[in-house]
């Protein structure tokens, strides 16, 4: 028992081997490899159009990879639809916020439990005991989650009426409501001012410590990335051009060239 536990703890949460994705003639991602160990906070950066979001879409199951394989906690995700991948423990947020704008904040959190409801149409119509206990549990859990995220006062509000920064926070809370092992954050600081970004850094660090979750993050704000990530991977035109600690990345010639261009033109 103890041995198997330690084994799972040492097994990577996410393992990607030789991942390639081609859209017609365009190679969006080529031969991408990564291994995320439990509890890591890793970054993924690259210039616009480098294929970062494509990698996230592949991991969350929106695209089926042309080549290579993706393992979530040792389970291959090939052929699984996105909600099944989510059920394996991968949650994500989106570059442009995708909340359900006409449902209350509380409902947004509750519906994210959909896969684990454990009751179906019949139970919802007849209101069986199973329905009632599960709804109570979900409501309680959602209320707790809103509480720790300091969103409780917005519980009955519609997300579209919330300030932008709060919507970002709510989207992360909703992702955490699926009990993920791996949280993919796609540009969480996009559109935030520097004060909000500082707040976000605190929030992500706090989530990382509190929720026992591995975080993989795409981010253009370099100060956010340098502050949070322990490991950073840089891709450009689908190819991995560098990886290492923030300090190494900052001084990497290939990265500087990719971002700023070559001066020997």
């Amino acid at each position: 028992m103890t041995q198997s536990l330690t084994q799972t703890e040492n097994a990577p949460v996410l393992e990607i081997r030789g991942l390639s994705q081609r859209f017609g003639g365009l190679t969006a991602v080529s031969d991408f490899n990564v291994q995320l160990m439990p509890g890591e906070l890793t970054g993924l950066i690259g210039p616009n159009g480098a294929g970062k979001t494509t990698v996230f879409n592949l991991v969350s199951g929106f695209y089926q990879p042309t080549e290579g394989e993706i393992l979530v906690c040792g389970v291959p995700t090939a052929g699984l639809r996105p909600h099944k991948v989510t059920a394996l423990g991968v949650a994500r947020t989106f570059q442009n916020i995708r909340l359900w704008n006409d449902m209350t904040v509380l409902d947004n959190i509750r519906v994210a439990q959909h896969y684990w409801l454990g009751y179906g149409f019949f139970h919802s119509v007849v209101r069986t005991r199973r329905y009632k206990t599960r709804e109570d549990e979900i409501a309680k859990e959602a209320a707790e989650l809103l509480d720790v995220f300091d969103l409780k006062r917005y519980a009955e509000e519609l997300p579209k009426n919330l300030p932008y920064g709060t919507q970002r926070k709510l989207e992360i809370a909703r992702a955490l409501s699926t009990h993920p092992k791996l949280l993919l954050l796609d540009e969480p600081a996009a559109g935030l001012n520097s004060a909000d970004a500082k707040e976000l850094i605190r929030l992500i660090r706090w989530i990382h410590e509190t929720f026992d979750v591995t975080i993989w993050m795409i981010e253009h704000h370099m100060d956010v990335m340098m502050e949070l990530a322990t490991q950073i991977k840089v891709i450009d035109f689908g190819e991995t051009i560098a990886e290492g600690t923030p300090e190494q990345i900052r001084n990497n010639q290939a990265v500087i060239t990719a971002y700023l261009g070559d001066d020997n033109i």
Partner: protein
Amino acid sequence: MVLFAVGLLVAAHYRFIDSYIQIVAMTIGINIIMSTSLNLVNGNMGEFTCGHAGFMCVGAYISSILSVACFGSKFGDPLLPASSVLFVFPIILLIGGAVAAVSSLLVSVPSFKTRDDYLAIISIAVNYMILSALENMDFIGGSRGFQGMKDTVWAMVDIFDGPWMLFWVILFTALTVWIIRRFISSTYGKGVNAICQDEVAAEIMSVNTNKIKIINFMIAAGLAGCAGGLYAHIIGYVNPQSFNILKSTEALVMVYLGGMGSLSGAVISAIIFTGLLEVLRSQALIDGLLSPITMMFPDWEPSAGVIKWVMIPLLLVIVMQFRPEGIMGNRELSDVFPWLKKFYRFK
């Protein structure tokens, strides 16, 4: 509500209200089932389908055939004794609904990949498919229609002389509203709303969107099938052409008039719409309304049956112009009148 329904039944039983009012009440009930069930797909799930009458048709035919086979003499001797009709009739209606629900797979499976206009075209195509198939089945009358369901109704009247069809319509209407309200207010049913607002987010937040779509379409089509069965037994005659695209449009109009995604809106608009259809049937009223025009054109004698199809769409255009979100928007009665919350919660 219960008192009103019982009052209606008692009044009908003792002939305080004549059979015309009963027919109108039953049509209202059927239209409530149609509009609330279509609202589940077009309002709550945000898909645009306009073939709802096709499913009504499936339900109407299946339950008619079953009912004639069980209690009529058209296909030889009745299969069941007439005394069992009170228990068997609702089962026949539910079987009609179940078959209609299965036939909804014709729309829900394509809806995995298509949306909006394309799904609308698919749903119209399915409506036509169902009608053409039935028109070509000669053993159930083909395009001449199918009758004999009155035997079942008379069998019920033989047991107890009362307004049976009115009773069944009220029962099924109440059942429909009850089922839909409970479904969409559960976290399970809120997955439908999540698909409407952002399907990608719904899928990534662990909602099995394909399954929910199938279930939602099945509920909607199944209820429409029950409505079809009731309709067939009230009229005593079904014809494929009474479930054509016009009938589907009627259901659509009721949904959009009431407000998308509002259950109480769909109920209210079904009542208003059916009421209007009946009121405008009056030739005297049409003559009065059009008297300024007929004075100018003395040769023109507008017929109420035709003119009402000018007036009602015109009314719809006016409503959409000034209240594009429909009568209720996406709110429920209890949002508009908060004191109602004490008695009833829609969400």
